[in-house]
């Protein structure tokens, strides 16, 4: 069901939930929320749990960092409860984001932003163009790197110097991007794309009953986790 929800509806609910979470400093609200999100994914979505855990891992570590930072550098009012709350918040946010990422097709997301949330087609289609160029840009990255290696450019070992050395690849890539943008825009205009607001869509993204059901689920979860916070 989560897969069938409209991407914009999901996006709005996730954003609202996150902002709501920001006002709670007790450990129970984010914990209940986190558990709820995981149950929702088990019940209503197909998730590749192995990838899920891999993507979750860095944030689990980040949550630990948050925990001890709040313990050591917290203000007078913070307790272990506050520290737990902030680390659970990191987990709740990450699980919610992964729920979105795992149940939404990237292209559908942009199409839906354009059709439901009135994002300008000029911007929406440009983002899709950029997205299409990803594999090309990836190949180009390796080509530039290899070409430079052939000419004897060495990659420095120390991390800071290595980051600074990225500019040798970045600048040719950006120069290439400028040229690609020109050619692509020309091709789009040649095919009659003007980017005006009123247009038809070959692939329509709609709001359906799955969205109503999903909305109810999100609301129950949000209210439930807030209630857990007040009751404790």
């Amino acid at each position, binding site marked *: 069901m989560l897969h069938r929800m409209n991407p914009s509806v999901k996006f709005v609910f996730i954003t609202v939930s996150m902002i709501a979470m920001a006002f709670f*400093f007790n450990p129970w609200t984010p914990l209940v929320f986190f558990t709820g999100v995981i149950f929702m994914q088990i019940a209503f979505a197909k998730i590749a749990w192995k990838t899920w855990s891999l993507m979750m891992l860095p944030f689990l570590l*980040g949550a630990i*960092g948050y925990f001890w930072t709040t313990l050591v550098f917290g203000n007078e009012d913070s307790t272990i409860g506050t520290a737990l709350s902030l680390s659970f918040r990191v987990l709740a946010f990450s699980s919610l984001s992964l729920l979105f990422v795992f149940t939404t097709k990237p292209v559908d*997301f942009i199409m839906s932003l354009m059709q439901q949330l009135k994002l300008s087609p000029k*911007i929406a289609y440009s983002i899709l163009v950029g997205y299409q160029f*990803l594999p090309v840009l990836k190949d180009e990255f390796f080509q530039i790197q290899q070409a430079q290696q052939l000419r004897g450019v060495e990659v420095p070992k120390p991390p800071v110097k290595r980051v600074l050395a990225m*500019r040798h690849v970045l*600048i040719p890539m950006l*120069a290439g991007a400028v040229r690609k943008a020109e050619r692509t*825009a020309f091709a789009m205009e040649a095919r009659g794309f003007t980017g005006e607001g009123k247009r038809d869509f070959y692939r329509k993204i709609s709001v359906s009953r799955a969205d109503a059901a999903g909305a109810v689920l999100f609301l129950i979860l949000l209210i439930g986790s807030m209630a857990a916070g007040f009751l404790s």
Partner: protein
Amino acid sequence: MLKSWKLKEVVLMSLFAVVFGIIYLLFLHVGNIWASLIGPIAYEWIFGIWFIVSIIVMAILRKPGAAVIPETMAAAIEVMLGNAVGPRLILAGVIQGLGAEAVFAATRYRHFNVGIYMLAGAGAAVFSFVYGYLLGGFAALSTEYVLLMFVIRVMSGAIIAGIGGKYLVDALLATGSLRGYAITKRDAHA
């Protein structure tokens, strides 16, 4: 606002957003690893990286929106690539972009020099800090610690996004590929 935009300028923003979206994601992972060791302050000193596309695109196109739109697009690309920060990145992108945009708007899009770029980087840092303060629950941390985070983030914004952005734009200008954009039409070193 979008009426005055040529399609090639919008596509340029998007392609830059893709390139920097990837870089942003890389640094997000670097930040995460650091953060597990030294806590949320780990992100602060590299924060300027995440503002850089605003400054670069604004320096090239010099139009209202050229800071906030590419930053938002880069965030959208990061979401499309899939990561566990997800949709709230888009909100963060809008807010950071607005911070940089505010500085350029205050000069009425007339002055483009390294000082303004540094201010724009700092502006993005201030805006993003307010947002981070709320979502990250910094209210639970002691004032001194939050202040330290704030100062590091603003400096990172000014140095990495401001000076770094200026450096990259100048290097890109030297390649000659920016002919036909605002940066070469007006006095580039105003």
